[in-house]
């Protein structure tokens, strides 16, 4: 406790960021330390699960120490521990979970497993103190693309999700074939700024009428086919134009479906969260659309878009206050539904 307020230690290790954070009550971030493994995985062109797990284990304890130090507290001051329990890479998740479970047991404090998507949504609360449910959320990252109706802090209804690749995954794959490197999101965003988004018309996949699901594997194939055609023609490939055209195709689908979902659920607030919510075109398009259609739009600053433990701590505190506490049998759930 600090000034009579609950202190939550948040831990996140679901993919390639090792993160620990200290949160005061639900929304005040005292520290949010993130050890990124991007450089480690660049050599492999993507996240290698075994290597990610090894680095999480190397990083986890020093990262927790830094988070405590920055918040100017010790482990004994912590009132509850929140940890991502899924979805994610199982070998990565279990580093955070084994650590959180052991600490909760020793400190005799409540342990709260947090769904990664609930974490991403909670990231928006941190910077928008006035935001309260209900609202409509688009959670879009390297591992997820979901439209979620958030009816209360711990009540969610998934209205649609990707049937194949996540949007961020498509960005990584397209960046690789364009020779831009890894991670794809920021690299395509940058290249697209220098290109013509109408140079190539990639097919927008909307699936069945009324569906709020997504499919991004087709557009990735579309880009590959386009590259091959250009090669056969002996034409020079314009990487920036291709990146810009691909990006626009993805963002049009994301924006359109989110607006449709918000209208359907009669929500007046829209939240975008997850790694791809840092994309400059998505932010701009959503801003324009929301302004035109009369929705309030909320999104986190880029650092809270990436995987981080502050959002996990925030979500854990909301769960704790609703009495949603886990026991020592908490496990990793790599494919957990929200």
């Amino acid at each position: 406790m600090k000034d009579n307020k609950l202190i939550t230690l948040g831990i996140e290790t679901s993919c390639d960021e090792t993160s620990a954070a200290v949160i005061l009550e639900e929304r005040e971030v005292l520290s949010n330390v993130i050890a990124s493994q991007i450089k480690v995985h660049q050599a492999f062109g993507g996240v290698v699960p075994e290597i990610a797990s090894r680095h999480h284990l190397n990083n986890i304890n020093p990262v927790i120490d830094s988070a405590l130090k920055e918040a100017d507290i010790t482990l004994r001051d912590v009132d509850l521990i929140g940890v991502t329990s899924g979805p994610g890479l199982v070998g990565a998740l279990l580093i955070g979970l084994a650590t959180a479970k052991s600490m909760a047991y020793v400190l005799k404090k409540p342990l709260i497993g947090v769904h990664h998507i609930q974490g991403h949504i909670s990231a928006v609360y941190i910077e928008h103190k006035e935001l309260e449910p209900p609202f409509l959320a688009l959670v879009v990252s390297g591992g997820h693309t979901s439209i979620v109706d958030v009816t209360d802090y711990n009540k969610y209804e998934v209205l649609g999700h990707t049937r194949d690749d996540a949007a961020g995954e498509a960005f990584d794959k397209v960046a690789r074939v364009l020779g831009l490197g890894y991670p794809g999101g920021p690299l395509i965003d940058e290249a697209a700024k220098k290109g013509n988004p109408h140079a190539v018309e990639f097919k927008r996949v909307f699936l069945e009428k009324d569906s709020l699901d997504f499919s991004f594997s087709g557009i990735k194939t579309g880009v590959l086919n386009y590259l091959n055609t250009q090669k056969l023609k002996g034409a020079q490939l314009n990487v920036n134009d291709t990146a810009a055209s691909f990006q626009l195709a993805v963002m049009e689908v994301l924006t359109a479906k989110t607006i449709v979902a918000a209208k359907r659920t009669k929500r007046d607030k829209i939240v975008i969260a997850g790694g791809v919510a840092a994309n400059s075109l998505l932010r701009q398009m959503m801003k324009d659309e929301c302004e035109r259609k009369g929705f309030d739009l909320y999104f986190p600053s880029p650092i809270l878009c990436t995987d981080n433990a502050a959002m996990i701590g925030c979500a854990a505190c909301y769960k704790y206050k609703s009495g949603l506490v886990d026991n020592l049998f908490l496990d990793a759930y790599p494919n957990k539904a929200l």
Partner: protein
Amino acid sequence: MNILAIETTGAAASVALINEKGEVSVEISDQKMNHLQNLMPMIDILLKKRELSIDDIGCVAVSEGPGSFTGIRIGVASARAIAQALEIKTIGAPTLKSFLYHANDYKGIICPIFDARRNQVYSGAYQWIRDEHPGKSKNESPCRKEVQASYRELVIGDAYDLPQLLEKLKTILLKESNVSTALEITFFGDGIISYKEQIIDWQNASLNDNIRVLFANDKIRLQNASSVARLALEYYRQGRMKSLYDLKPVYMRKAEAERKLEEKS
């Protein structure tokens, strides 16, 4: 002073407590490969049986590997977090070496083999050294018995191609069999399942008749936290505790992707 020992490198997890007198109690999971879920509840049960609390633990030891990569990480992460929250030291116990304590009174060679796939095993060979001159020191100082146990490492713990390991063992066994009349080697570990036949063929083809090759029975074949605890107590007496930040997993093998990347370049 109590040491908590964690063993999660094999199929079944176990935890043990040992005090300075060397009294051990152990809790073994009846589930396979469910370490993350079961480890803390098992520790809780074990402590309650001994009427202790986690705060009574003075040092936490872990079977550091080799073995299942995931299992090693669950053990090391848990041991480190316990040490971090309790502000105590840790001990990294080499998993292969812990098999010495599976057979305290055994005179033969102890050889754990863990299936590492790709026709490889994680293995090492160890042997207790007995006092060959009992008259010399036995009654002079009664404390002598408490002095550190003594053993030798005949094959250094590492990842080996099976034929490479058997060749090393053959050289040692043939040399040793000239010295002692009856020589025994006992294999432990889950590698027995995959490699028993190859080992028997090797015995028939390359060893003398006075060398006996045995396979540990099911009950003592696999990793066990009680042996980890005994080895940890020995390390504790030698002052070989370390900070949690120095407690490292011992994989003995690179990640597959890393190996392939190096092969390419």
